[in-house]
């Protein structure tokens, strides 16, 4: 096992980025015009990077599998974006944002990267406001903030529950401006199916035009993967249907290491699974936990009665309810971090207290909040002896003003009125902290190949804080990659146009073609979706909220068997050279099945519990996570080897903490 060089600049933490920027080589405007850059994915990271690089003068080709760059799944982010602006005068600072992010990540991220993220966070807000992003404002016309996920300051900027949408549309606007100028060539409905490496450097991609089905060769001096996370390996997640790991996995197979692939964020408040054909899980914003109380029945017979429809939640008295988060974590109560809240829900449901048909749901109850707000408002309005009905009505109005759109969304999906009966929620896969290993410059282990945003592993350690994903995507895209990609390209000004006629391009294209023809010629009879569902179940059961050695080993065996069956039994209708979504899906699921095995391998080798990774063998007597800093304070970077995802080689990047002290997170 070798160690990896992250190329972290020398000097004090707070000066590293400034010094680095001052010293890196630049490319002159005349030379930029001679350099091509490929950007894969057009979410926050991709759109921002493509626009910024084009503004600088590079020739950019941007790719997305959706019909328009504006549809990338960044658009679905609800809550907000963090930035250390300290507009609220509540003691926020760059260091505090850095510290919160390192601690929230359970000390499994790189100090220098996280500090840079905190440093550029303020510029992101300035940039977005200049672009016309309509952030929420207060009555004085200044930007409003909300607090989020367990931190002690209000630093989250938001646009109602649609912050991701507004930020993405801002980046999409910037991208569109460059498309209009001819600085960016946009390839929508195109999917990257191979990475092309020439003389050890990333020099292009093979993309499939999803409309015509043709394979295309595209060359460039650098390739940026901004392809998001791989949560769909679990089949059901809050990700979009098309979100996939294919581009990242192809890069992995060509030499890019995957780092901490087992670090997955399971979000505690999602609408539970309702049936076999469910395709997707919907998130209910974390902000609901400010006012909602989470509970299950105290007695198993009550839980059973509710499951069978004989009792309603409102039939249960206070003393028959178990507010388990308040019971277990009196200091933080319902506002414990995401990983803790998720595991606690699973623990109750596994013990038989789940409250929906599937037994996998808990209540999120607003009755207390409605009563509290109702009483307050009655007092404000000078109503002296309000009836309980009046209190309810007043309280419901306040709750509606705070969470109206979420309540409405819940009602649309479940046909239940959450003002009258508690919401049912259950944890669901939401985000992947793991991803392609990158150094300080966001370059992967393949020279010239960069990874930005959720696709890389860099900033969130083992657990991401709320409202930090948007921050990281835009930081990488607007403010980091434009500098660091230039550093790499400075050596390439003499290279000239990269030919697509090289044997490397021909071979990559052939690999892609053979693989697709393999799917189409398979004589099986089972749709791709069935295999994906099975993979998801294995991953969720064994590599989800709790993991154990026996479970992970079983999962690896099961996944290998599933993969074998997949290639024999899958049925992909249609042809190669046409619009064929089933063929697209087959390729994506095949890659998920390889990634799944690597995730289990990573989870197996990480013999500790940290953040979203909980090993049952490593818990305290009360069931809390036990981190093992002496042995596992490293980034696990996996190198693809021997044509087999299960034979990946582990490389360790030791994490050095010079500015924070490692402590155990406690929420009791």
């Amino acid at each position, binding site marked *: 096992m070798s160690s990896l060089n992250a190329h972290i600049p020398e000097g004090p933490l707070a000066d590293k980025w400034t010094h680095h920027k001052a010293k890196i080589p630049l490319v002159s405007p005349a030379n930029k015009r001679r350099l091509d850059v490929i950007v894969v994915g057009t979410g926050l990271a991709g759109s*921002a990077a493509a*626009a*910024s690089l084009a*503004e600088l003068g590079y020739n950019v080709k941007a790719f997305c599998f*959706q*019909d*328009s760059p*504006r*549809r*990338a*799944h960044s*658009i*679905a982010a609800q809550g907000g974006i963090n930035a250390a602006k300290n*507009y609220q005068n509540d003691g926020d600072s760059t260091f505090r944002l850095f510290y919160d992010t390192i601690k929230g990540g359970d000390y499994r991220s790189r100090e220098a990267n996280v500090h840079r993220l905190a440093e550029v966070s303020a510029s992101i807000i*300035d*940039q977005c*406001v*200049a*672009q*016309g*992003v*309509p*952030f929420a*404002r*207060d009555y004085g*016309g*200044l930007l409003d903030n909300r607090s989020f996920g367990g931190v002690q300051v209000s630093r989250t900027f938001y*646009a109602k529950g*649609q912050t991701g*949408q*507004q930020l993405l549309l801002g980046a999409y*606007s*910037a991208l*569109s*401006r460059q498309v*209009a100028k001819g600085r960016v060539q*946009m390839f*929508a409905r195109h999917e990257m199916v191979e990475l092309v490496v020439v003389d050890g450097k990333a020099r292009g991609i093979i993309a499939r035009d999803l409309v015509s089905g043709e394979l295309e060769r595209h060359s460039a001096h650098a390739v940026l993967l901004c392809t998001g996370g791989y949560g769909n390996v679990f089949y059901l997640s809050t990700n*979009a*249907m098309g979100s996939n790991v294919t581009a990242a996995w192809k890069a992995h197979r060509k030499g890019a290491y995957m780092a901490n692939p087992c670090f997955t964020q399971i979000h505690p408040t999602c609408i539970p699974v*309702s049936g076999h*054909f*469910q*395709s*997707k899980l919907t998130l209910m914003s974390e902000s609901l936990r400010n006012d909602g109380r989470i509970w299950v029945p105290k007695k198993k017979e009550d839980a059973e009665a509710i499951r069978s429809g004989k009792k309603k939640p409102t039939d249960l008295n206070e003393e028959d309810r178990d507010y388990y988060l308040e019971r277990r974590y009196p200091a933080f109560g319902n506002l414990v971090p995401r990983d803790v809240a998720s595991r606690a829900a699973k623990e109750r449901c596994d013990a038989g207290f789940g409250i929906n048909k599937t037994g996998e749901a808990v209540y999120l109850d607003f009755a207390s909040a409605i009563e509290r707000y109702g009483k307050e408002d009655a007092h404000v309005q000078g109503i002296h002896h309000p009836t309980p009905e009046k209190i309810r009505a007043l309280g419901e109005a306040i709750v509606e003003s705070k969470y109206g759109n979420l309540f*409405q*969304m819940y009602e*649309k*999906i*479940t*046909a239940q009125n959450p003002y009258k009966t508690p919401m049912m929620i259950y944890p669901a896969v939401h985000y992947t902290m793991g991803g392609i290993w990158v150094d300080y410059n966001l370059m992967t282990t393949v020279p010239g190949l960069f990874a930005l945003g959720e696709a890389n592993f860099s900033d969130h350690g083992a657990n991401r804080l709320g409202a930090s994903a948007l921050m990281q995507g835009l930081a990488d895209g607007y*403010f980091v990659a434009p500098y660091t990609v230039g550093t790499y390209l400075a050596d390439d000004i003499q290279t000239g146009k990269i030919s697509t006629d090289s044997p490397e391009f021909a071979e990559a294209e052939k690999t892609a073609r053979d693989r697709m023809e393999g799917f189409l010629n398979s004589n099986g009879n089972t*749709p791709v*979706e*069935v295999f994906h569902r099975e993979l998801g179940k294995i991953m969720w059961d064994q590599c989800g909220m709790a993991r154990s050695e026996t479970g992970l080993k079983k999962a690896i065996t099961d996944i290998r068997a599933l993969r074998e069956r997949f290639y024999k039994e899958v*049925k992909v*209708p*249609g042809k190669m050279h046409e*619009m064929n*979504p089933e063929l697209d899906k087959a390729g994506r699921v095949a890659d998920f099945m390889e990634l799944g095995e690597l995730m289990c391998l990573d989870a197996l080798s990480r013999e500790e519990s940290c953040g979203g990774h909980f090993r049952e063998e490593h818990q305290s007597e009360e069931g809390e996570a036990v981190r093992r800093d002496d042995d596992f304070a490293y980034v696990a970077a996996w190198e693809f080897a021997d044509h087999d995802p299960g034979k990946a080689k582990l490389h360790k990047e030791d994490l050095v903490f010079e500015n924070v002290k490692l402590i155990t997170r406690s929420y009791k």
Partner: protein
Amino acid sequence: MKFTLNVWRQNGPQDKGRMETYQVDQVSDDMSFLEMIDVLNEQLIHQNIDPVVFDHDCREGICGMCSMFINGEAHGPGRGVTTCQLHMREFSDGDTITIEPFRAKAFPIIKDLMVDRSAFDRIIQAGGFVSVNTSGNLPDANATRIEKSHADAAFDAATCIGCGACVATCKNASAMLFTSAKVSQFALLPQGQVEASERVLHMVNQMDLEGFGNCTNTGACEVECPKGISIENIARMNREYLSVSLTTK
């Protein structure tokens, strides 16, 4: 639940296309409309029939990718929802449901229910942006105060998801609601003022070039818009365009 589905099948832009009838059963009322189509497609694959091609992605009503004209309405009978948020409980067991693609000259059909909405991208490219380069040295975000009501109205306009339901619904296949939403967002914010004249002229020009129809103020678009974008935005764009037309050289 069981349904009879009349689904538009069309192999490509040149194909004439036709309605095909399929039966689906084992549909539960908790399913979304797209999950019902998933069930249909698994069934079709088993029957050696090519599955129905349709656009979809986030399945939570925000990406704007799903389309479908269901029983004569864009995104079906629900209000304030996209097709992915429409649930089968909105229908009765045994219903016959007609499913067509969004139809407009500017939205050519790619296959079956999937259409090409890149005309919307080109309208944005014509001026739907504020021309600021990425820079670490822009004025502080709080340097300019913006009246809350203006910021809120700009946000409401900016919530457009670009799905094209307005065009699909409009009897004239007009893209005025889409175009005006973006024009309005920037018209309401100080950041957008500098380029306001150029923006509205260029965006309207591009909208016309794409072959969309004209607005006759039926108001159908705002009824079917999943995000409830108001035709107040169209009036604002009309106002902007008129004043620019009267005052430019």
